[in-house]
């Protein structure tokens, strides 16, 4: 399937990041910590963290061990990174960050992992793109762009980070 035949145009990742950051600037003070999901979400969280001058603690989750589809998809092919939450999850208001919201299974896994560290007071979700195709009752609170109609399943949409730390999309099928 060629990209030209796509029924929709995905806005540039940098543009979406700027929009997400603007929305984030308005609300960040009501959070106690940022948590990015490895890998795309972790990059986003890192950059948001830098852009507010490091004012909130920054954590990272690799949900590979919490996926519900090990038997179907196998263990993650990427190098699994240790999760790192350098703050008390108990009672914290957490902004969970991922690049793309799709089925919701990654977020489900991330929530389960978070709760193994403690009981957060609140968790909200920020993503760059909601591509449609959710299979669980999970929605993004901050989301600069929702695909309508949804991006069809054969496409894989992933954030990549350039040498100069800016973002771009990698779309494959």
């Amino acid at each position, binding site marked *: 399937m060629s990209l030209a035949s796509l029924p929709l145009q995905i806005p540039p990742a940098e543009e979406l990041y700027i929009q997400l950051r603007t929305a984030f600037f308005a609300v960040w003070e009501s959070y106690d910590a940022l948590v990015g999901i490895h890998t795309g979400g972790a990059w986003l969280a890192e950059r948001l963290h830098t852009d507010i001058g490091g004012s909130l603690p920054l954590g990272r989750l*690799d949900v*590979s*061990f*919490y996926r519900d589809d*090990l*038997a*179907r*998809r*196998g*263990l993650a092919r990427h*190098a*699994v*990174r*240790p*999760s*790192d939450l350098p703050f008390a999850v108990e009672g914290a208001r957490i902004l969970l960050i991922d690049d793309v919201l799709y089925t919701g299974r990654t977020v489900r896994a991330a929530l*389960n*992992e978070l709760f*193994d*560290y*403690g009981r957060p007071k609140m968790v909200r979700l920020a993503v760059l793109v909601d591509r449609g195709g959710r299979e669980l009752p999970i929605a993004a609170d901050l989301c600069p762009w929702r695909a309508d109609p949804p991006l069809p399943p054969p496409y894989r949409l992933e954030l990549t980070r350039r040498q100069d730390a800016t973002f771009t999309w990698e779309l494959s099928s």
Partner: protein
Amino acid sequence: MTRLQLTPDGRLKHLLTLEGLPETLLHRIFELADSFLEVSTRSVKKVPLLRGKSVFNLFFENSTRTRTTFEIAAARLSADVINLNIATSSTAKGESLLDTVDNLAAMMADMFVIRHAAAGAPVRIAQHLAERGQTHISVLNAGDGRHAHPTQGLLDMYTIRHYKREFTHLSVAIVGDVLHSRVARSEISALSALGVPDIRVAGPKTLLPKELSALGVTVTHDLDEALDGVDVIMMLRLQNERMHGSFISSVAEYHECWGLTPERLKRAKPNAIVMHPGPMNRGVEIASSVADGPQSVILPQVTFGIAVRMAVFALLADVAPGAAA
């Protein structure tokens, strides 16, 4: 055996020996272990990766310590762990090894962790399962006779990687009762696969197998020579049952010639690490002051052992039927 323990696409199906395991697979295990090490530091030391899987610990030879580490590793992955105390079970009533295996397979086991006094028992069980079409069951060798103890070898390599980072410039000495050690063989295979250029094996003539030099290691009967300038010292346990046989003349003499003392340790590099697979015979192969000293990494080895076994379980579960490539 390599063929038996890897799938056609190169993934781990059984862990029977470290011989022939590709270096990439070893590094994959180490990377996963890094993550599992982090899991073990949480207040909730558990991830749901193996939820619903049944792990059977089949210890035909008693080893509470090794069994416990496998049990903890499986539990931290949320697997159900069933320990079979073989001494009091059907084998004592005359049931054959393979009948026992068939019965447990019928109970829908997913993994067998096997410790057996006979070399080759885990391989035989893996072959039998294949013949019976029980291809979803993985076999993990937890020590078979004098043959192999692959998870101990892996955790030792992981320990070296943790403290020394790279393998390709290291000098490593393996000291003691190599003849009766299943650990030593696994270690030599793994050290070679990881590119360690200088592997020295030292011990009394009666406790070093003759075929050693064929493995590409330097054999010496002089401890000082073995320790000279090394980065890593791996002490082996002098098996209790050998102490009174004809292999050595006396425990005191063994300690005198082969025990790692603070004076001897000075021959190694100042930042050399001292390892021991446990349980230690203090005052025999290792002096207490060395075992408890700043260069000893014997207790970290135990901690790493859990993470490494979790990594192996995770990789074995990963080749469940239907797993996408």
